């Protein structure tokens, strides 16, 4: 219908004309990259750590640890023999930030497995973990050698196993690793949550604008309230699709040139958890389908919230229950990632309010029966129908109301009488 088309067009054109849209379009990838990379950067503690090994142990333990640590690009290590006053002067160095910290090594390391690290930052998991691993490796080698085991055998025994994980999808083994699946699922979860919330609230403020300026009265004298709501949701939806296209293209460009950015940075190996995932057509389709499903479901609710409120402040309060539904779905994503086939995960991916986030996350994280996907989609579609029906009735009454927000009882009456 031509009038619905005009509403869609207005929503679309007016939105992409705003500065805000283009800021989002340009900063979106930066934001998501930050969400992605920041945990890795923070966990690694960043930069090279200058460390001193205070060696009070017999034999070559201290020297071997120093050598091994210096073999890693993350550490620059100097070994000093233990003397009186050395701890005090090193503490002063740490205070003055000339030193990251120092490791006190005594015979206890080999005998009872105890060593001490003093530093300005002892919560950097990656640093502490690397120290622990290195010390443990050297100490256990020394212990074996003291028992008379051939150093060659010790060295061979210590070759670690690297478990290569490959995902089976559609009867074929893909080249995707577990780490990639994880990061893809994580990434999709974040984008879905952010985008559904963002564009849902866009629909709400658009409804609210027409209501508070009273222009809605002229509009609903020319087209049915449902047509107006439909046009609005579709228009904002079109904007979101454009936003995704821009993000997709810029992500492609960034990834294609990623080597250029990476060589400029630290040469160290990237954190294995955050690898660039491979996105195939089916995954993209699942993502877009559930995004649209979630968007229609939530924006209908947000439209109803906008219609029953008379001001921004009121709307901000009234939208909380709707937002919480989304937040809960988002937070439970981490549980789903932990075990994508658990009853918890399956339930969430069937409940329509959490399915738009839960299902794509499960899809990305592991193999998924097509029947479950179909069932989840069917329930979601039915829910969109039902929720839209209720929301449209609230919308129709609400857009003409002024004064205080309706309570639950009045709302039920609106739905019944509209």
């Amino acid at each position: 219908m031509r009038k619905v088309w005009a509403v869609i067009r207005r929503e679309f054109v007016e939105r992409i004309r705003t500065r805000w849209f283009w800021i989002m379009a340009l900063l979106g990838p930066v934001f998501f990259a930050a969400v992605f990379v920041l945990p890795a950067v923070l966990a690694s503690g960043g930069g090279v750590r200058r460390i001193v090994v205070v060696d009070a142990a017999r034999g070559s333990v201290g020297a071997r640890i120093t050598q091994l640590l210096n073999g890693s690009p993350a550490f620059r290590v100097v070994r000093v023999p233990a003397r009186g006053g050395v701890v005090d002067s090193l503490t002063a160095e740490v205070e003055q930030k000339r030193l990251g910290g120092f490791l006190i090594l005594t015979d206890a390391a080999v005998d009872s497995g105890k060593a001490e690290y003093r530093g300005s930052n002892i919560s950097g998991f990656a640093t502490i973990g690397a120290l622990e691993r290195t010390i443990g490796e050297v100490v256990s080698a020394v212990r074996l050698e003291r028992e008379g085991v051939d150093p060659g055998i010790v060295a061979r025994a210590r070759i670690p196993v690297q478990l290569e994980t490959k995902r089976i999808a559609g009867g074929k083994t893909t080249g995707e690793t577990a780490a990639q699946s994880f990061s893809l699922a994580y990434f999709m979860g974040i984008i879905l949550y952010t985008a559904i919330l963002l564009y849902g609230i866009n629909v709400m403020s658009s409804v609210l604008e027409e209501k508070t300026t009273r222009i809605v009265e002229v509009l609903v004298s020319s087209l049915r309230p449902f047509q107006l709501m439909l046009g609005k949701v579709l228009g904002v939806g079109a904007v979101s699709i454009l936003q995704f296209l821009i993000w997709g293209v810029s992500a492609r460009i960034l990834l294609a040139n990623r080597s250029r950015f990476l060589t400029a940075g630290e040469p160290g190996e990237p954190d294995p958890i955050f690898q660039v995932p491979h996105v195939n057509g089916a995954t993209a389709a699942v993502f877009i389908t559930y995004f649209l499903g979630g968007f229609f479901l939530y924006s209908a609710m947000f439209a109803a919230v906008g219609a029953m409120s008379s001001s921004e402040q009121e709307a901000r309060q009234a939208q909380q229950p709707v937002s919480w539904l989304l937040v809960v779905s988002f937070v439970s994503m981490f549980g789903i990632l932990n075990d994508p086939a658990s009853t918890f995960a399956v339930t969430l991916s069937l409940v329509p309010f959490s399915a738009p986030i839960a299902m794509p996350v499960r899809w990305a994280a592991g193999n998924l029966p097509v029947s479950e996907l179909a069932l989840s989609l069917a329930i979601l579609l039915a829910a969109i129908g039902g929720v839209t029906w209720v929301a449209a009735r609230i919308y129709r009454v609400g857009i003409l109301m002024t004064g205080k927000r309706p309570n639950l009882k009045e709302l039920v009456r609106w739905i019944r009488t509209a």
Partner: protein
Amino acid sequence: MTSPSPSPSPSPILILDRVSKRFAGHTAVDELSLSVPRGVIYGLLGPNGAGKTTTIRMIMNILEPDGGAVRVFGEPSGGRVHSERIGYLPEERGLYRKMRVLDVLVFLGEMKGIDRRRARQRAEAWLERLGLAQWRLRRVDALSKGMQQKVQFIATMLHDPDLLILDEPFSGLDPVNAQVMKDTVLDLRSRGKTILFSTHIMEQAEKLCEQLCIIARGKKLVDGALGDIKRTHGGHHLVIGFDGSLGAATQVFADKDLVSKVDNYGQYAELELASGADPQQILQRLVTSGARLSKFELREASLNKIFIDLVGPDAARAEARPDA
């Protein structure tokens, strides 16, 4: 009005047949029937809270009546189906604040069912005509309130509708725009359009309306041609002006054989004659009472007077408006 009156069409352009609307525990419009002939200026009059806006919203399909029927252009459907032939100006008017003036007008034109190109041409022509041409690419919120009001008129007339429905069109207008509005209404009337407007200001209605309907508390009190209403409900009225001294005029006014009702302002009074009373006798009595008269005029009642007589002082008070 000097404009040629088009021959009244046999079928009314708008008919309400016992239309009712109830809100939670309160009847806003109660079995209201009226009929608006083609080509007239029709006034829907009533105090605040009488149900005017609710009635108009039902005509426009914004609200569904709980009972009764609305017929527009002879068809048993409300205004929405005919929105391309109806110009509607609601009482509370607004525009998209952040859109450009021309874009808003084109969009609202599209809402009325005309295509973008025509909407744009007409919007440009109207903006030119009302002196807003240099503002066409500015955002609405850059315009003064008066200019925004003009943009709202344009939006109402853009699609050249046959029927205009204006809810309190003069409320909130500055004097210049009130003049523009009045001229526009008269111009449309001379081009054979029908205008229905609501107001609680009787002086305006008296000057503009040919036909009218007075409602209070959702019920019709009277409707018909202005002249007929004045003849039936006006009674005989005397307007008296004093020139300083009133003498014993108040005693004359108190004579129930002569005067049935009096509205005394001190230096000015409106009297309603008792049935069978002779105005000449009143004149004589006033002169002998020592009053100095500057004016003695036999006149039909003002619409305002008829309105207050019909509505009563209680209903004339503003009421709470659950619908607005």
